[in-house]
């Protein structure tokens, strides 16, 4: 999700490593914003993996990564300072 806070743009998003994912879908049900969904692709082990299809809705709460049994999810936080009122 991209959010403008006074003089900062904050963006959070997740990445799913397809080779680690086994498609248990725990993250899909745990995510409060519905960021993650099942893809229609298979990895080399034959599992259907999940993808962050709606990353623009991510708030960076890390709930998906907390319940992922396969350490497939990475959460990123981006920050950029722009011109505007200071704190």
């Amino acid at each position, binding site marked *: 999700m991209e959010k403008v806070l006074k003089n900062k743009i904050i963006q959070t998003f997740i990445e799913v490593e397809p080779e*680690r994912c086994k498609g248990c879908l725990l993250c899909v049900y745990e995510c409060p914003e519905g960021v993650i969904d099942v893809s229609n692709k298979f990895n080399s082990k034959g599992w259907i993996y999940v993808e962050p299809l709606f990353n623009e809705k991510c708030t960076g709460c890390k709930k998906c990564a907390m319940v992922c*049994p396969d350490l497939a999810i*990475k959460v990123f936080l981006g920050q950029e300072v722009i011109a505007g009122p200071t704190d």
Partner: protein
Amino acid sequence: MELKLIFDKPKTMTDTKTHYCPGCGHGVLHRIVAEVIDELGIKDRVIGIAPVGCAVTAYDYWDIDMCEAAHGRVAAVATGLKRARPDAIVFGYQGDGDLAAIGLAETIHAANRGELITIIFVNNATYGMTGGQMAPTTLVGQVTKTSPKGRNPNNFEGYPLRVAEMIAMLEAPVYVERCMVTSTESVFNTKRAIKKAFTLQMQGKGYSFVEVLSGCPNEWHINPVEANRWIEEEMTKFFPLGVFKDKYPEIK
């Protein structure tokens, strides 16, 4: 834009992909233990003991010194390691077939002696690795391969063993808790419990025991999301969560 990684796998976990089935609780618990080891900064002096069961190859996933014990003998091996290397932090990681069935004698006596070890007990109410047979912790009425009509106490099949309560009844253990790994909140709670158990050992207080209710969707024949709901709704009725014994409530 400046990018920061705010969630990644802990340093104590290796890059190896786990062999566990989709939705298995072991993966989350491995990560929790690794995070606790990272946070306490004890990676160089911690020794883990892998059980026989699904977590038998846990030494591939943790980048720490590991030892493999014969079926059920984790507590005995941990006792020896701790006595030979008092400066090491020794923890055992056991499933319910390992701890509650064949290793119950070792576990009870190690707890009763108050050995300075930490035991993490993963309770999934079935024998996961061998194909889903009835375990001592299988719930009454639960269908498994060896109890096709459901576990029936009237047919001399008995009741589930509440191991955490049994350990808490003894005099020597200092910390006994039961938690689960089904949601973000419970994962945080489990992490707090395991961190406390390690801290108590580091301070030389005594035996600590953490039981973790974990899902086995493959052998319960339900999907991982339903498995977690089943733990929260059915398993916690017979295995209530909470702290059963805490001699040092001031230590976090």
